[in-house]
């Protein structure tokens, strides 16, 4: 499989802190890649760099071979690289339906068929079982429903190539967690969507991810299946302390 998302020597500093240190990562087309590591390892920074929230200090990011480093976030989103946030960024004052419509319509600055847009929104309202709440302001949703809505918003975009999910399962009940997992797996199978998933939930990562990348203190330490990675000395030392190695 060809590489879809690639970073080369990606570095970002915040003052004296090197948040990501020459991170090189290659995610294949159609892959579900996990990104794990202790708190402060630079996972969210990497997600922010890839999706253009801030520009890298040095290094390169490519989406299907095209350089995207330094592009504005909306340009990256329109190129098919979307993301969800750890701190949920749904729009509380918009209705649930409007939240779904926004990324779909934004692709063409509001152009395109509004009938198609609403058909697609209905589809995802049904899948997420949020249809009863479709016209409610999204701030009325529970925490889990918000997380579900946020993930579903990205799937509204037909051109979605790669979806970066930052802690999509944190603090969510098992039923909604399963719905999100189903959404991810079906988009991966049916639409060939590639994923980069940041999560601490090892059970879910084992179910979902073909391979995982481990970051520690801003660097990529090891890459492989979850089993391979979990047996790695540096990883055990970082999570549990050197005494356990």
């Amino acid at each position: 499989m060809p590489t879809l998302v690639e970073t080369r020597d990606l570095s970002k500093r915040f003052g004296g802190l090197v948040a990501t240190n020459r991170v090189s990562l290659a995610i294949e087309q159609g892959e579900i890649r996990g990104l794990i590591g202790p708190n402060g390892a630079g996972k969210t920074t990497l997600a922010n760099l890839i999706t253009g929230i801030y520009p890298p200090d040095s290094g390169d990011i490519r989406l299907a071979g095209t350089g995207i480093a330094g592009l504005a976030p909306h340009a990256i989103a329109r190129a098919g690289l979307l993301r969800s946030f750890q701190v949920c960024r749904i729009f509380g004052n918009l209705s649930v339906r409007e939240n779904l419509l926004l990324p779909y319509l934004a692709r063409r600055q509001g152009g395109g068929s509004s009938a198609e847009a609403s058909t697609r929104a209905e589809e995802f309202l049904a899948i997420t079982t949020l249809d009863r709440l479709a016209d409610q302001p999204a701030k009325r949703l529970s925490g889990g429903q918000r997380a579900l809505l946020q993930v579903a918003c990205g799937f509204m975009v037909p051109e979605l190539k790669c979806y970066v999910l930052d802690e999509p399962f944190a603090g969510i009940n098992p039923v909604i967690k399963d719905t999100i997992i189903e959404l991810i797996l079906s988009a991966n199978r049916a639409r060939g969507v590639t994923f980069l998933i940041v999560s601490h939930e090892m059970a879910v990562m084992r179910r979902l991810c073909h391979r995982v990348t481990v970051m520690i203190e801003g660097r990529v330490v090891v890459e492989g299946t979850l089993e391979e990675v979990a047996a790695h000395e540096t990883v055990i030392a970082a999570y549990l302390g050197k005494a356990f190695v």
Partner: protein
Amino acid sequence: MFSTELFLQTLISGVMIGVLYALMALGITFIYSIVKMINWSMGEFYMIGSYLQYVLVAYWLGPDLWYLAVPIAAAGVFVLGLALEPILIKPMFRQALERRDEYATVVTIALLLLLRNLAIGLAGPNQYSPGSTLPTVMLGPLPVAGASLAASLCALLAVALFYLILKQSWYGLALRAVAQSRIGAQTAGVDVFRLDQIAFGIGVALAGIAGALLAPVFLVYPANGVVTTVKGFEIIVIGGLGSIPGALIAGVLLGVVESLGAAFVSAPYQNVYGFLLVLLVLLLRPTGLFGERGRQA
């Protein structure tokens, strides 16, 4: 001293002028919610709207076609806003500025001085009036100046149109999203910088409409936007920064309080009653009637 008739008349004139103040406040609060800056030069866009209205009515359309001049004047101010935003406001976001609020304050106050002096240079310090042929209307037993009534009805129409755009159009949806989270909207694919430009255009156009509508009532001169701008900011404090219903309700409230104060307490202090209302609101509800407590990320 007190009569029901006088009370009703002042109430009506208060509501009428309040709607126009609200238009001004709406522009300030709208630009603030999208672009996250206070535009101190709102009054100058009001002034430009009034000059455009005067030129259109006096030299081209005539006082009978004033209602055609209003949308043209508004469109003129809108286009001016679209043209100025990328030059003056956008650098606020592009460079990693440490003090955005200070930047916006300095730039818009400089713009205020430039535009006001430009008006003095081009048209002199004179007062112009586009005149109005609208007859006095009787609301029941009460006479109401035709131009004032027309102005407030048109202001209501402008507010309704603004609301419709915000609720029904793609741009409205995107603008409401940007008002909540710039980053969230950007990662959903919304070009936030383009929306900044449109929001600035719409915001100053609201001031321009107020200027055009009030041209026959408050006249046309270089500093004619000052009073309405001050009222606009009073309304923002009363209603709560960033709240659209707050701007509308506080606008009408301010108009009514000022009119009633002028009629029943003392007319020369008309502009003071608004400030008393502001003080009262700050004491009892510092976030304004509809404001939400601010959070700094």
